[in-house]
């Protein structure tokens, strides 16, 4: 089996704090990490490799050269090789242009039996790249996968995937080639091994630029993106807060009164008819 895992480098959200005065987010020393949801895609790929050791896993990313470190982490976890789409021309790509570049790279480096990624990235939070890559490659896609099992026999390979959606779990039978996006329900991703870290340090990461993908400058970055950001606001996240101290039994009674009154005022609840 040949697997590609799409990986994005994102800012660490745990390092963000809220400024209580301005009500906006403060970025303390920004550190870059592998998008936490991509770790579940990596874990899924590695579980398949555990079961089928002949499996080869490529980690693919698009971003500035610093994104190498995200790919090295993927190798440290157990991926076999990595490639990075990089270059100024790709800057300011929207999800459409990003997916186009990724699928062009997958076409060049593939074909792949499975293309896996996180359900979304924690910075952009769109979740569009997985289904868009599938569309560019004409493949089926299953999103929000939280459990996976693979059977090689009887051939051809058959996969059972569980999608975690709003009101329950959907169990699918599917077959490669296929794109899947993963959510946290998959279970804890493994940690890198020391040997993996050593290998990652020395690994050569393949660089892919526009000519390697067979795309023109008009087809990448802002020029290749059908959407434009016209305005960015920093909203005040904070609200006008009423604070109630409820350290005593009387305090708790008063706080319950206040909460019930608020819910009535907002039209959320109504008094039951006396029975």
């Amino acid at each position: 089996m040949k697997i590609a895992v799409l990986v994005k480098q994102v800012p660490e959200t745990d390092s963000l704090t809220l400024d209580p005065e301005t009500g906006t987010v403060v970025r303390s020393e920004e550190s870059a990490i592998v998008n936490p949801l991509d770790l579940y895609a990596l874990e899924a790929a590695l579980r398949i490799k555990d079961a089928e050791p002949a499996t080869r896993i490529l980690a693919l990313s698009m971003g500035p050269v610093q994104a190498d470190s995200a790919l090295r982490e993927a190798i440290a976890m157990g991926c076999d090789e990595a490639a990075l789409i990089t270059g100024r021309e790709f800057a300011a790509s929207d999800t459409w242009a990003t997916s186009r570049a990724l699928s062009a790279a997958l076409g060049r480096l593939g074909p792949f039996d499975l293309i896996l990624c996180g359900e979304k990235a924690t910075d952009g939070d769109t979740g569009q790249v997985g289904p868009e890559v599938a569309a560019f490659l004409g493949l089926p896609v299953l999103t929000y996968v939280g459990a996976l099992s693979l059977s090689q026999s009887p051939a051809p390979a058959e996969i059972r995937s569980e999608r975690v959606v709003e009101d329950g779990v959907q169990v699918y039978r599917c077959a490669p080639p296929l794109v899947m996006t993963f959510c946290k329900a998959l279970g804890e991703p493994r940690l890198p091994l020391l040997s993996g870290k050593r290998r990652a340090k020395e690994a050569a990461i393949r660089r892919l630029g526009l000519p390697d993908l067979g795309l023109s400058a008009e087809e990448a970055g802002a020029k290749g993106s059908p959407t434009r950001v016209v305005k960015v606001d920093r909203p005040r996240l904070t609200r006008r807060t009423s604070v109630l101290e409820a350290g005593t039994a009387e305090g708790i009674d008063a706080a319950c009164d206040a909460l019930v009154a608020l819910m009535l005022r907002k039209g959320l609840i109504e008094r039951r008819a006396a029975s």
Partner: protein
Amino acid sequence: MNEVWILAETKGGEVAPVSFELLAWARSLGEAKEVSITAVLAGPADDPEELCYRGADTVVHGPGRALGGHSARALAAWLASLLEEKRPTVFLAAATATGRTVLPYLAAREGLGLTADCTELSLDPDTGVLLQTRPAAGGNIMATIRTARGRPQMATVRPHSRRPLEREPSRPVAVETRAFAPPEAANEPVLLEERPFESSRGIADARFVVAGGRGFRKKEGFALLHELALSLGAEVGASREAVDRGWTEYPRQVGLSGRTISPDLYIAFGISGAIQHLAGMQTAGTVVSVNTDPEAPIAAMSDLAIRADLFEFIPALAARLRDYRPAD
């Protein structure tokens, strides 16, 4: 005349209520003489006319199988065939598991732009283009986006970001039924089974959510929250810490690595409010937090912040709420 399409979903053989919110968004883009609204309904539903009562001028209904029974690829192919006949100026879907899978597939296939999970939509008064506003970067910026090329302009819209219009049964009904039988491709995923969550609804659709975090100290504490949820008709949500400690299951996690929700009421118990959590609930209607830590960031995000021991407060509140029920 603006032609606006919405992708209506079905649930249990009926039109899913989230579709009515999309109709309200579509109607907000202009008066009846300026905007004509078509609801594209995919999946079996007994009541397509409800979409007309809630604001659609026309319904295009492809009964087919339920949405979950078709892959996004098959659905996108059907929608693309409708777009070949007619190009609306705007096409909206709900930011649900279905909408957030099918619309990107359609967008990439058709070379169209798409903005995810919008919380605000409007038309630019000068140019008439659709302005699509969404929270980004963990909710700490609001980005307004337009579609530079290609029509329709497409967006998915966060559930609960707008109230449905009043039901008007006197509105004219126009339902056109269309064949929806996508060809079976060789490696099309096959839906084998659906396992609904135990509670009646997930947190994504819930009007009220009561959520718990580290303040519960251990799993047993969460039982209190489930009791309160029952008495209030709410769903139980959780912070990442509570899920990572195994106190409740992942589909209840609110935040960047869980679900983004927008209930009418969100009560956070023992949750400090890391940015990654706040990003998942900041568009809730009313926010209440109950916490012992006066410095917790969730307090500043709340309409009402109560400093109390949650093990004392929750039973008192549950008892008080017995005299009330959710308002219609």
